[in-house]
């Protein structure tokens, strides 16, 4: 027996008149559809797709070094992995309407990965985001509870080690509002990135372990 909710939704989908036919958003907002429905984030879709491809290709998305695995280990990267992160080598621009710098922000930090991930988690939770941890990466989602739409911002945070005292934090927006994303990035890079003043004092004292300025503040 088909429930009334189902019948209603099916009827609206099969409406021969395209003007009154229900839209995708309408379907997602329909009461019947929303029961026990968890939206699949774009990141999860990507990982599922990877699992279906050949081993050699699915391992492309596995950035954990073979020697160390664990939720808190940094991703040690070499020069080519760093180069590969360049936005100029990212052809996703063909398919996205936003500029890469609106979707991916990187900054360097001297804090160790464990501390970075903990502090990012703390900061974003204070800002009202939800955090999921997986394979040393953080997935940060902002859900607007007062609206019926699913998460309005989803950001993946990942830390890479490029040298014993330098780490690169990559904040990649997988979907959602660009303004909120920029605010989040600005806050995190201000708190965790290496600041200009540290560079100045380093140079003046002739300290060999000079801390380099590397704060990227996303600008409008």
């Amino acid at each position: 027996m088909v429930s009334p909710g189902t019948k209603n939704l099916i009827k609206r989908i099969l409406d021969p008149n395209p003007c009154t036919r229900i839209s995708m958003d309408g379907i997602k907002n329909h009461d019947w559809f929303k029961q026990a429905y968890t939206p699949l984030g774009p990141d999860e879709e990507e990982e599922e797709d990877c699992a279906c491809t050949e081993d050699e290709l699915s391992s492309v998305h596995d950035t954990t070094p073979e020697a160390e695995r664990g939720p808190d280990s940094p991703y040690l990267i070499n020069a080519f992995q760093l180069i590969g992160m360049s936005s100029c080598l990212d052809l996703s621009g063909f398919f996205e309407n936003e500029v890469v710098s609106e979707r991916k922000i990187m900054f360097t930090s001297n804090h160790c990965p464990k501390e970075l991930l903990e502090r990012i988690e703390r900061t974003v939770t204070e800002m009202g985001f939800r955090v999921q941890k997986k394979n040393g990466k953080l997935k940060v989602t902002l859900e607007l509870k007062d609206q019926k739409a699913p998460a309005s911002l989803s950001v993946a945070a990942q830390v890479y080690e490029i040298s014993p005292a330098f780490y690169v934090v990559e904040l990649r927006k997988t979907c959602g509002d660009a303004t909120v994303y920029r605010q989040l990035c600005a806050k995190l890079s201000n708190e965790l990135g290496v600041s200009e003043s540290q560079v100045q004092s380093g140079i003046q004292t002739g300290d060999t372990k000079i801390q380099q300025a590397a704060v990227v503040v996303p600008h409008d």
Partner: protein
Amino acid sequence: MVHFLDGLKQLLSAIVSCCDSEIYKQPRGLESPEALARETVFSVSEIEALYELFKKISSAVIDDGLINKEEFQLALFKTNKKESLFADRVFDLFDTKHNGILDFEEFARALSVFHPNAPINDKIEFSFQLYDLKQQGFIERQEVKQMVVATLAESGMNLLDDVIESIIDKTFEEADTKHDGKIDKEEWGNLVLRHPSLLKNMTLQYLKDITTTFPSFVFHSQVDDT
């Protein structure tokens, strides 16, 4: 009267040949998606969808059915003002005919390498050529340094020279198994097999869904779906 008719005939044939040359001036549309589909990883519907993307990019500045460097940059970076050593290199690799312009065939063949289903050897080959800035058949230390500096600069990250040198030292230690100061194709292949994430930027998941992103094949397809 005969002269008049002759003149009219000449006028008409001139008009017709003019129209013909209009057609031939523009590269023909999607001529044989099946042939391209056979030679790439794409299916026929994917080729047709890719063609829609191609048309969108190639009409941005000059609507001539070809992608010039400016349109290429506009499509990727949404600005034609970005000077980038990488952007030039990528364009050159797409431009297999070396005429400074991309036709659909070059576009489709190059993007085929980025499909999730493309053979890994194609990705290894493409990325090697990409990083071999001077096209000498090997990747030099100086080229790697240039690329690292460019990558850091574009994100506003600055690192001390000796930090950069130590990053490259470590990379070469691992990659340069023949210890000749350069990374050749074989060493590159081995490095990639040890670190598959090196090819992360050589795969565009978007290509898997291209028929849903550019669905005009539903209306224009000349081929039955199999």
